[in-house]
């Protein structure tokens, strides 16, 4: 088994490739691809394509930005706005205005709410144009999407799994992936698809004495208060799992999230604020 770990997109990335040493160059390629996509899509890099879009309000987008924004807009529609790429300003207002390593854990200033559901248009095939005051953050989908993208290349050499800081994409054989819960770790086994966790147990800080975190509820424009600590979802891909996990996290509570996972057939592991753990969507 070939393995590789490296830091990218503000998190740790792990790659497992069930192949012999001749496939080693594919791991180099995978690492380079993460770096390349981060350089294109990070909101923290002033020279990224995404930063240019946010700064200028319009850009002739390359295929990666175009595809990811299109996927995000489609996800916004499918989740009735729970997943929303236009949460950029709400994240900044909440205090997440730099890479998480540099975010001050104790911030002054009052918590604020910023309107989301901004206008994003794709014109002439590849020109992305933002409505007035709209800016985009792709942090809720880019890691899973890049994991999917890298997985496609790796799978030419054999079964593979890519874990981008908890956003997992895998294919080719049975893979065991652990899920942290307050009571005990749970191991899920899947052969292909994606797995992702959204929550407020990490990437959190205090602003004006109030706890803030990185999951914005687009309906309030502020860090979500949902009664859930984490939501883990299984999807057909890493990107899809990220969207589903965010959607369940914002479903309105543990009971609502479980009902929705059951109704939609989304295998999910949900942890409430009180530490209670619920399995839903056929997971048992």
């Amino acid at each position, binding site marked *: 088994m070939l393995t590789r770990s490296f830091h990218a997109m503000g998190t740790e990335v792990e790659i497992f490739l069930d192949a012999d040493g001749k496939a080693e160059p594919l791991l180099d390629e995978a690492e380079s691809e993460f770096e390349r996509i981060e350089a294109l899509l990070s909101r923290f890099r002033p020279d990224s394509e995404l930063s240019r879009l946010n700064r200028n309000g319009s850009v002739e987008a390359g295929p990666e930005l175009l595809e990811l924004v299109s996927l995000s807009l489609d996800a916004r529609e499918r989740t009735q706005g729970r997943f929303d790429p236009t949460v950029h300003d709400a994240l900044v207002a909440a205090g997440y205005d730099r890479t998480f390593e540099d975010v001050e854990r104790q911030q002054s200033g009052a918590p604020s709410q910023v309107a989301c559901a901004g206008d994003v248009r794709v014109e*002439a095939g590849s020109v992305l144009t933002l409505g007035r005051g709209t800016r985009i953050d792709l942090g809720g989908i880019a890691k899973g999407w890049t994991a999917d993208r890298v997985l496609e290349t790796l799978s030419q050499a054999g079964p593979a799994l890519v874990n981008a800081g908890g956003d997992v994409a895998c294919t080719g054989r049975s893979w065991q992936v652990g899920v942290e819960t307050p009571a005990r770790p749970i*191991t899920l086994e899947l052969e292909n698809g994606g*797995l992702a966790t959204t929550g407020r147990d990490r990437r959190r800080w205090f602003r004006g004495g109030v706890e803030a975190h990185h999951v914005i509820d687009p309906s309030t424009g502020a860090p979500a208060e949902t009664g859930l600590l984490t939501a883990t979802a299984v999807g057909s891909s890493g990107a899809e799992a990220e969207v589903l996990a965010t959607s369940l996290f914002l479903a309105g509570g543990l009971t609502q999230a479980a009902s929705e996972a059951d109704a939609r057939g989304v295998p999910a592991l949900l942890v409430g604020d009180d530490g209670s753990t619920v399995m839903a969507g056929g*997971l048992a």
Partner: protein
Amino acid sequence: MTDHVRRLYLAAGALLAFFLAWAGIAAHPWTTTSAAPDAASARAVALYEQRLQRDAALLHSLSQQKLATPAPPVRIVTLPPLTTTRTS
């Protein structure tokens, strides 16, 4: 030939000369007939073709997303995990 007949010939000749001149001018003999597309129009066509291809790819991508893709089979096991998912 009487004056009357001469005037008729003159009028017919003038009419014929007028129509010949008209036909000659209408044919635009001073313009070039080569209709080969220049480099600029070829580039414009190529760009338009690329845009159509991008539009088609985008539509295809969106339509694929619209299709409800079922979640892959997953089960809980007691094996140790190879890796762990957590809030990303």
